[in-house]
């Protein structure tokens, strides 16, 4: 770190030194103090908005509207703290329905909408990777194209169709919608992964007389666990965080989810405004925990080139 030779100015005779210099020039641990301080400031700045909401969620109504959250943050012992906001928003219907119920609804929507498409997509990805059939490549190109197509293209006819079937506002309506909308990404991720699996193993299974069904269950599914996990995280976060699909197919009734309830609360001007930070925290805590505990799979899914339209 303390070599004084400028990169590139050394003569070939200084080669060992130069190599050391280049290793420390931009690599890990090469940060100068301005870089470290800059990154620290950036990280703090990135977290300050969220910290503000968290602090406010524990402050009584009067405090929230008479001083900024930083007043309480820097004088924690001279400020009043309360969990009333949480108990209120969880039990009363300020947000349309109690937040506890919306929270459970979010799980009711997210879990089947995450788990069911995986199996359907895995079978399809197997067919796209290991079977020869007419129309296969064309079909896959269509799926790749659909990755970027916004879900909005489907809403008007689906709302009409669901209306005719009396399905608007029901869980199956939104489950099926999320299964359909998530399918191109699921097939894409799984197929990309499966095509990277060693073909020799599949060939030898075939020679041993294993059917496609057995090969799929016994070999491909266990081997694809990382890809299944990264899609599961993607889809779960996507469904949990979704606002538009929930607004359109579930609406604001008893079945509404946390994001919609939180959005409904934002419109409040009088009573209930103090509950917004608490409701916000309740809405974001699950994705944050999922993300922190499964970060590795999430990043792997991202770097495999997944785009969701």
């Amino acid at each position: 770190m303390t070599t004084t030779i400028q990169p590139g100015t050394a003569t070939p005779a200084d080669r060992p030194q130069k190599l050391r210099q280049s290793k420390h020039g931009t690599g890990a641990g090469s940060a100068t103090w301005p870089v470290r301080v800059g990154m620290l400031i950036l990280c703090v700045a990135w977290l300050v908005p969220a910290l503000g909401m968290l602090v406010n969620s524990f402050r009584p109504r009067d405090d929230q509207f008479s001083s900024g959250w930083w007043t309480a943050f820097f004088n924690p012992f001279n400020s009043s703290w309360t969990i009333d906001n949480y108990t209120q928003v969880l039990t009363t219907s300020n947000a349309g329905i109690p937040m506890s119920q919306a929270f459970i609804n979010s799980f009711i929507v997210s879990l089947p909408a995450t788990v069911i498409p995986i199996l359907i997509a895995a079978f399809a990805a197997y067919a796209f990777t290991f079977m020869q059939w007419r129309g296969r490549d064309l079909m896959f190109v269509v799926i790749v194209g659909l990755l970027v197509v916004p879900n909005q293209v489907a809403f008007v006819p689906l709302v009409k169709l669901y209306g005719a079937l009396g399905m608007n506002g029901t869980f199956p309506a939104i489950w099926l919608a999320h299964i359909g909308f998530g399918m191109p990404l699921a097939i894409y991720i799984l197929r990309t992964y499966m095509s990277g699996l060693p073909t020799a193993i599949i060939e030898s299974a075939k020679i041993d007389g294993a059917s496609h069904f057995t090969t799929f269950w016994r070999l491909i599914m266990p081997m694809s666990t990382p890809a299944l996990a990264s899609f599961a995280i993607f889809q779960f976060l996507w469904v949990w965080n979704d606002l538009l699909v929930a607004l359109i197919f579930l609406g604001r009734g008893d079945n509404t989810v946390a994001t919609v309830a939180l959005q409904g609360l934002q419109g409040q001007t009088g009573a209930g405004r103090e509950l917004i930070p608490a409701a916000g925290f309740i809405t974001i805590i699950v994705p944050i925990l999922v993300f922190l505990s499964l970060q590795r799979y999430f990043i792997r899914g991202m770097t495999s080139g997944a785009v969701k339209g």
Partner: protein
Amino acid sequence: MDIKILNAVIAIIGGIGGAIIIFWILNKLAESLKGKWEDRVKPWMFAGPAILAIAVYLIYPAVVTLQYSFANEDSTAYVGFQNYIDLFTDDGFLSVLYNNVLWIVVVPALTVVLGLGVAVLADRLRPPGEKASKTFIFLPMAISMVGAATIWRTIYDYQPEGAPQTGMLNAILAFFDQAPVFWYGESTLHFNSLLLMIILIWTQVGFSMVLLSSAIKSVPEDTVEAGRIDGAGERRIFFNIIVPQIWPTVITVFITVLIGVMKVFDVVYVTTNGAYNTDVISRRFYDELYTQGNNGYASAIVVILMLAITPVLVYQIRHFRKEEAAR
């Protein structure tokens, strides 16, 4: 409540179990066929349910949407191009399009540049510092736009003049004895749209950083070394050696954010609901579909959005073909 949870459990078990049974039956059916036909039919048994889901939930509705876009508000009679003519002669809709263009111009580029900057800086920290700072920057990616908009109230909040300010921006103004500003209403030069874009950028920079950082790390060390031997400075090495090699990743990040921005909805809907000249295509679409109940306009807006996305779609398919060929 208990019944709901029970329903969900049944849905999971039934959905998974049902799917397994369906696939098993389909597989048996295919196996009962003789020789060649078995191989011909089986792929469709495996891929069929997924293709059906895509057909029913994406392809068929897209075609119907195109059809509705030429029909009246309750889709009972055709009106030709009237919906499109109405939209393109409506100043309100044109400014919606203009706003969306602003989002498209500002957000993807800024996300890439910021993500690249953070990636370069974070990579120079020691591993624990790098990991911690990356997690912090990446965290907002996990939360919903509704949550993000809620969080940013602590920055943009506005109280009338004289009252103590609870938003950080207005508190800073108050510190310098300036009158508070209602930020979401500040439409001069689309300043309020820019403030909303910052919320989206806040959630996306982590994504950009992670992808670009892993791309930078996979740049072969000897190419950088060669540059050094030739006497290139750090800046030249970065722009002339590293950037060209990570360019494909830059494009991937750009396209991903671009697609997200073209259909941006949540952040505008939650903060201003399109008021103060901040409206965007997707929010307007929701408005036409729900508040106005006009299927014709709503469908026409989606078709316009789809046309705008078509170049990206073509790029995506070409890119995929190239990758497949390289396999």
